[in-house]
């Protein structure tokens, strides 16, 4: 069961207008911890601290600034900020369509289901067209005073809207400064074979979150005053580069 619709909008491109309702598609629930001061177990508060003076800054001494390329900030008051941010509207503008495979998962932030608002033939037509062409619609919209960039896609029987992060928010691979090593075709070949043997179909329901339960048990144990046995985490011995080929061969033998 999805929850209530969190927002309503209109998918718009060309002369097409499709009213939709947004529903969150993911619900996460985890054990929440509070942060406490070690010495007296007092709950800590989060405060805005001045990076310079390391003292808390009350709201009346806070102002927002937009960082220019030269490192200076243009100060903006709350009312100026309102003027700058795009106006509230219900339009989800579809700017363009792109091949599904082109959107790399580093850009995806959240997923929403799009429920047709009122029985909508246009919705079904769009769904069919997207499926046939295997494309996604890149959209922009403003929701609750925040601007969003997203990708609208067809999945199964329903349209979805994935919010995307902007390109400058993704750290480029080049900044990792990875070294370039030489690898033999033989090693690549055996590794390929190995991976084929380890390939399965994507069935995510196979994977359960076992940790939550175990964590709850730990907390219960401590609440009862029981002693906790500290186990060292398992650490594997890294495969040395000179032994890589034989390790691959041994692995293949094991699974084949």
């Amino acid at each position, binding site marked *: 069961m999805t929850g209530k619709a969190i927002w309503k909008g209109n998918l718009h491109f060309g002369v097409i207008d499709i009213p939709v309702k947004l529903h969150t598609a993911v619900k996460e629930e985890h054990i929440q911890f509070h942060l406490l001061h070690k010495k007296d177990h007092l709950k800590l508060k989060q405060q805005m601290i001045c990076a*310079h*003076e390391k003292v808390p800054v009350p709201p009346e001494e806070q102002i927002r600034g937009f960082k220019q390329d*030269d490192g200076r900030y243009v100060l903006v008051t709350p009312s100026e900020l309102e003027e700058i941010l795009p106006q509230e509207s219900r339009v989800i503008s579809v700017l363009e369509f792109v091949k599904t495979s082109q959107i790399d998962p580093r850009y995806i932030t959240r997923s929403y289901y799009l429920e047709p608002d009122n029985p909508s033939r246009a919705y079904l037509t769009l769904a069919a067209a997207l499926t046939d062409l295997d494309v996604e619609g890149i959209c922009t919209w403003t929701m609750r005073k925040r601007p969003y960039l997203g990708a609208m896609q067809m999945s199964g029987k329903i349209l979805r809207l994935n919010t995307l992060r902007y390109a400058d928010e993704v750290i480029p691979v080049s900044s990792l400064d990875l070294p370039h090593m030489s690898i033999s075709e033989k090693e690549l070949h055996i590794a390929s074979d190995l991976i084929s043997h380890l390939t399965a179909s994507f069935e995510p329901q196979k994977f359960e979150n076992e940790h939550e339960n175990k964590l709850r048990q730990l907390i219960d144990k401590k609440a009862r005053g029981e002693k906790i046995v500290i186990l060292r985490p398992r650490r594997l011995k890294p495969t040395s580069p000179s032994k890589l080929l034989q390790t691959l061969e041994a692995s293949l033998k094991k699974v084949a």
Partner: protein
Amino acid sequence: MAQIAGRNLSLSNLEKVLYPSTGFTKAHVLEYYRLVSPYILPHLRGRALTLKRYPDGVAEEYFFEKRCPSHRPSWVATTEITRGNGEPMTVCLVNDLDTLMWVENLASLELHVPLARADTPENPDAVVFDLDPGNGAGILDCLRVALILRDLLAGLKLACFPKTSGMKGLHVLAPLNQKKTTFDDTKKFSKSVAQVLERNYPDLVTSKMAKEQRVKKVFINWSQNDSSKTMVCVYSLRAGERPTVSFPMTWKELEHLESNGNPDKIQVEQSEAVNRLKKSGDLFGEMLIMKQRLPYI
């Protein structure tokens, strides 16, 4: 119009009083710099100059000029540096007396240069400890910190040399003159030194810039060790009320002044500077020659 070594330099407004409290005129400024030129030029040579111009004297508006004025004579040496935003900029190099005179004719009372030469802008020749007294502290406190700093660095086999800033603080510099030293190195080093001094003398020293942290303490401004920062050149005039000079001290002299306890005896004015230079030569000469390595960097 002056003729120096076959070049024409037009000097103007020579009678203009630039230091009202003493009647020190532009002519006097030019004369001062002419007299100290043999000592100051080696410290200015090959460095991107930032002019600090007081066209109407020390009591009036001043402005920094990093870009070499376009109306310069053809014989003024210049070089191109890359600004923070990637754009090129032409800067003046004060390599000879004529250029020094031309710059002073523009009433650049103060001469500020980076710690690195213009041809190797990322490699400083020295590491600087800029001692800046906060509200409620004074130059005597700077002397105190300088002595502790000297002993601290001596423990790491590093020699250093102090000079007055000419205003309220003190500069302590350790010459390095190593091709490979970077500002990253000197910044890291000076920051660690500042933090260790702060930990051990928390009531006297701070390594933090925030004004509230500096009250009654000496702030060691380690962030001056940066390619974008400049320091006032040794022997430069300062635009204070009186024509004081950024002047070097011997350690003996510094110890004496510190124990003497009279802050008024510390500043050196231009006439005293000229006399002392004539008598003892460039006290800061080691800065140009001595080679030292930063340990543990």
